[in-house]
């Protein structure tokens, strides 16, 4: 275990030779953006408005370009990322979300656009000294006190404790002006975080029955109709979610060729996975059900029980009509295990 004084933090970030993405203020919001001197760093913010997903899987990206040359079509692929970079200050839930994205994009066939960005990134995790009221990460096996990152930071007021867990992390930390620190101090911080987390309203949810074995039972529940009624069908929840990974691939006519790009899509939209026969999810009831069934039932049933919700609480913060996954879990689950 190592540590450095609190006032060294921005110096350390500025000294990193590769681009650093960190939670910074953008007007009234906090987003992960390329850090530059003078920006307001917001490592205190739990549940940033946008997530680190934006860096690994941007809202839109070009894939390839087609150009007609006489009777042949010239195809140019977009270059894959080749520059190393650091994402600084990522919470445990958002790191778990990256693991969910890995399951999707790094499974065969590998998404080489994502894979290149993933490979070149080093993640500096940040323990949640003050979990928020809307947090419920531990339900999904996430420990807010111990993010699974290349380097982890623990806030301790006048100093930061830090530890590297991978070769990438050790290489990054090498030049940091740290000193040896007491392991026990970090254990105390972790214990304090656990106590704070346990006092949160959604600390313990009952996820019994959210698995492949109960798929049809959940799918056929009459409760979906009422749960989905207030849903506007906007994409706020899907775009704020660190694990939502659905995208669309589209062609843009550039005038002398075609630019093929992909952009985030949302299962909340009426034209999502639209097919020649029409849409397979004709009303918001089916679209709403899809989103939660995917996170709580389909994904774990195909991924060794790994849920694709990480309990970050952003859908709680962002839904204009106050719908969210906790309400779904409580309505469709088998009661609250706090009872």
């Amino acid at each position, binding site marked *: 275990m190592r540590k450095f004084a609190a006032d060294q933090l921005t110096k350390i970030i500025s000294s990193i030779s590769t681009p650093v993405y960190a939670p910074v203020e953008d007007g009234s*919001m906090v987003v992960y953006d390329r850090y530059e001197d003078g920006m307001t760093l917001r490592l205190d913010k739990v549940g940033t408005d946008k997530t680190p997903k934006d860096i690994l899987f941007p809202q839109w990206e070009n894939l390839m370009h087609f150009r007609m040359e006489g009777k042949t079509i010239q195809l140019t692929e977009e270059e894959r990322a080749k520059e190393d970079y650091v994402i600084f200050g990522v919470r445990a839930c958002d790191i778990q979300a990256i693991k969910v994205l890995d399951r999707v994009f790094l499974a065969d066939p590998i998404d080489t656009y994502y894979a290149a960005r993933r490979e070149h990134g080093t993640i500096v995790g940040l323990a949640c000294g003050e979990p928020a009221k809307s947090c419920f990460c531990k339900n999904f096996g996430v420990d807010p006190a111990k993010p699974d990152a290349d380097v982890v930071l623990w806030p301790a007021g006048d100093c930061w404790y830090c530890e590297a867990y991978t070769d990438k992390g050790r290489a990054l930390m090498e030049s940091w002006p740290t000193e040896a620190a007491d392991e026990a101090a970090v254990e105390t911080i972790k214990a304090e975080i656990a106590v704070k987390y346990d006092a949160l*309203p959604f600390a313990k949810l009952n996820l019994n029955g959210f698995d492949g074995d109960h798929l049809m039972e959940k799918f056929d529940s009459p409760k979906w109709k009422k749960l989905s009624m207030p849903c506007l069908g906007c994409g*706020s929840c899907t775009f704020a979610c660190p694990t939502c990974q659905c995208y669309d691939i589209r062609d843009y006519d550039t005038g002398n060729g075609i630019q093929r790009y992909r952009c985030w899509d949302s299962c909340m*939209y009426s034209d999502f996975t639209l097919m020649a026969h029409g849409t397979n999810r004709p009303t918001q009831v089916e679209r709403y059900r899809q989103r939660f069934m995917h996170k709580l039932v389909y994904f774990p049933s195909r991924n060794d029980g790994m849920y694709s919700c990480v309990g970050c609480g952003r859908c709680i913060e962002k839904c*204009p009509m106050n719908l969210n996954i906790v309400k779904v879990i409580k309505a469709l689950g088998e009661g609250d295990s706090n009872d």
Partner: protein
Amino acid sequence: MQEIMNRMKARAIALLADGTVSRVMGWEKGEGEYDWSPALFENAEEMEAFVYGDYAGANLSKYCLKLGKLEGKTLVILKPCDTLSFKQLIHEHRLEREKFYIIGAGCTGMKDEKGALLKCNACKSKEFAIYDEIIDSEESRKPTGVMDRMAGVADLEQMTAQERYDFWQGELSRCIRCNACRNVCPACTCIKCVFDNPASGVQSKAPVTSFEENMFHIIRAYHVAGRCTDCGECSRVCPQNIPLHLLNRKLIKDMNELYGEYQAGEGDEERTPLTSYTKEDAEPGIVHERGRA
């Protein structure tokens, strides 16, 4: 507000019981103190979960588009500002009056976790534009707006064209095209929005070009001009905190100045400043001249 809620609840249960209405569109509590959601209640038992009070900020008028297609009448709870949206939808023949029983709900200003809603800070009126009955209190009839509704617009007008352009580029560049503003807007009632239609050629699921920054919100503001009641829902729901209401208010302010004071949804006249013509109307040239920086 507790007293208003109790009277409202009792009245709704009675109207369900005597068959006047088949369902009630109101709000229910969430998991915490602030996270109320719109909800539909079909019987007295379900009405147990009904709430009305400080966190009933959502405008229920847009839901009426779907509710109006159901069998029987729907009781809908509308706050004073919500009645403007509802009545505007009647003017536009999007709703049938006889399909609804409207309880005008007294309002002392709505809140969320962060405090008073932006739209309530510039409360327009405590009058109900349309209703079957009103359930309010002396307290709820007192004005609550603390801000000049057009103050934000006036600030923008003071800017140079370049400053204003930069301001909007900065704000609109945050747009993630989630379409919450469009979907919540009671004036956006196209059955299929052109931007959702793959055959339109302009469908846009994500901000892949500067279209969002330059065009989308401005097109939308013009499309609802003259029909927008300034209900403020667009800014309330924006997950990216874009002050969209300022676009609508600018158009309202211009219309008021050019064609006389007008509040969409208020009167019984279906013709609006932008859908009627008089010889006294401002010439386009005047508008054009004034727009020059």
